[in-house]
């Protein structure tokens, strides 16, 4: 029983970190409607930038993380400006292909700049674990999950209350109608990609602290999809719920199934769940059900 609760609690906390990964994806879908296959790579880039700033350059933590967020926001806006804006009147196929290409570029570029070795991020919080009622949680996971909750609430308010947030949703809903109402589509697209970059910086910091900074972190990019397919491609609440479910699936399969089905099954289990969700409920739990079947 205690193993069960332990797995459940750590699954929920890890799930919050998956929600952070997915949030960057959701913001792009909300702002431009593009299915972004490069978010995982952007997160890896963020992890490398923050680790480079904190260790090689020696910037203190309180400056290094915000600086990374700013750098990655610029990177995000740059991606929008130079890779996606030239394609803005092309088909969705071209846009998605462009994000796949971007992913490949970043996957090649990062180890060319920083080498193949494993890097680390000096931790602000020491590497203890919290022990409550016999359940242990790494401190970094705990505080990251708290940060993610705050972020998610903030983004929830941004999209439902602020003018820009509503404009972004309008653009993803119907570009032409939004444009005819005077919404600056280019601004909206640039803002959504910049946000995705900033979120990727935070995700890179958190996941880099947890797993070490390494180009193998790109696997995280594939784990974004189970989260957003389950939650609904453009729902922030969905990203939270989807993240927690993926965290639980991963945690339980690591605890109970890895021995029977082979090592590493816990990484694949969310992807199998993704297929099942596509079969049953392709628009996810909180997506717009008007998704078209053909």
């Amino acid at each position: 029983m205690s193993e069960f609760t332990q797995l459940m609690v750590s699954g929920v906390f890890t799930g919050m970190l998956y929600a952070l990964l997915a949030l960057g994806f959701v913001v792009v879908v909300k702002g431009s409607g593009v299915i972004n296959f490069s978010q995982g790579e952007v997160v890896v880039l963020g992890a490398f930038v923050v680790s480079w700033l904190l260790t090689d350059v020696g910037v203190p933590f309180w400056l290094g993380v915000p600086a990374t967020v700013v750098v990655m926001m610029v990177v995000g806006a740059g991606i929008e400006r130079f890779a996606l804006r030239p394609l803005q009147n092309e088909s969705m196929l071209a846009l998605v292909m462009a994000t796949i290409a971007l992913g490949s570029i970043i996957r090649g570029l990062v180890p060319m700049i920083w080498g193949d070795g494993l890097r680390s991020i000096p931790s602000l919080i020491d590497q203890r674990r919290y022990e409550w009622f016999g359940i242990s949680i790494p401190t970094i996971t705990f505080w990251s999950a708290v940060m993610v909750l705050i972020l998610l609430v903030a983004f929830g308010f941004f999209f439902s209350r602020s003018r820009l947030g509503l404009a972004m949703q309008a653009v993803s809903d119907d570009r032409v109608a939004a444009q005819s109402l005077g919404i600056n589509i280019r601004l909206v697209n640039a803002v959504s990609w910049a946000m995705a970059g900033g979120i990727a910086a935070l995700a890179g910091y958190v996941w880099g602290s947890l797993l070490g900074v390494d180009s193998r972190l790109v696997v995280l990019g594939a784990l974004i999809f189970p989260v957003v397919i389950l939650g609904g491609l453009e729902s922030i609440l969905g990203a939270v719920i989807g993240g927690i479910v993926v965290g639980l699936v991963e945690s339980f399969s690591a605890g109970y199934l890895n021995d029977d089905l082979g090592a590493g099954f816990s990484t694949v289990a969310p992807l199998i769940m993704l297929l099942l969700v596509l079969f049953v409920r392709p628009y996810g739990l909180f997506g717009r059900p008007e998704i078209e079947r053909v």
Partner: protein
Amino acid sequence: METGRFHEKYAEEIAVYGTPYRRIWILAVLAVTFVVVPLVASPYWLVVLTLVGIAAVGATGLNVLVGYAGQISLGHAAFAAVGAYTSGLLVSRADAPFWVAIPTAMVAAGVFSLIFGLASLRVKGLYLAIATLAAQYIVQWILSSWTWITGGFQGIVIFEPIQVGPLDTTTPTGKYLMVFIALALVVMFVENLMRSRSGRAMIAVRDQDIAAAGSAVSPLRYKLLAFFISSAIAGLSGVLYGYNAGLVSTEVFTLALSVQYLAMILVGGLGSIPGSLLGAAFITMLPIWLRDLLPAVGIELSASVEVHLLTMLFGVAILLFLVLEPRGLYGLFRNVKDYFRMWPFSY
């Protein structure tokens, strides 16, 4: 004065030999491929051309899906792996002859891909890309952790060479002939597919799925058909890889290879067979050019940096062609050709 070629009858639209010259061209290409090159080319070039041919098989297959049916697959390396392992294991464990093993492998790759196609193609949009990304990771995991399938260290499966009459795949010429016979069959099949109802249905679904459905063309059925054919051909390309290299291991069929296939068809030209071939040649030759040209300008790269540089360049190539020439190298060729055909009265 010719202003262009205009089709007045449907028969002209689907004619293989659209102009009298095409018959001569096709015969010339066949003669060069199957007679001149094997006699003239050095072993080095035979090896390079064999690699180009294997890539061209996969790229032609992927182009059926992306170019004609308008869906993206990020899992073609995985389907190639399914094909390669099916045929390799059938031959090595069940002693099946290659002419049984190869078609079985293609069907296996196609059927396996349908799991992912059925999950995602019922919905409008590019969900297939997501499902096939999952396929890529799932297959890589199966290959590396289910050792009872792949057998031992790094899942190495040995391919027995094919020896039938003059065709002997232990020699570079034999490998070259095997690959290009397969490529010729694939090209012929895809060319004819596109002249048929099914091919036109795929294009209709890509361009206007609602209109297609209104004309009694089921979008799901034709997207699935395109995906099945495309994955089966990817499986064939995996088999050819195995026979050419003599063995397959789990290291080969990575996500990077899937992206490489996408780069081939985007660089070559979406929805065109000559484009697939040109793109396959370009992307396969790129590492060779890099190896030859960079030291010439005084840049020495270590092997690992070279891999990363290539990964980056494939992405750059996709992006550049998307933005600058979406019709790819074949589109560029057509532009040049049209310019001279219309000259001096181009419009």
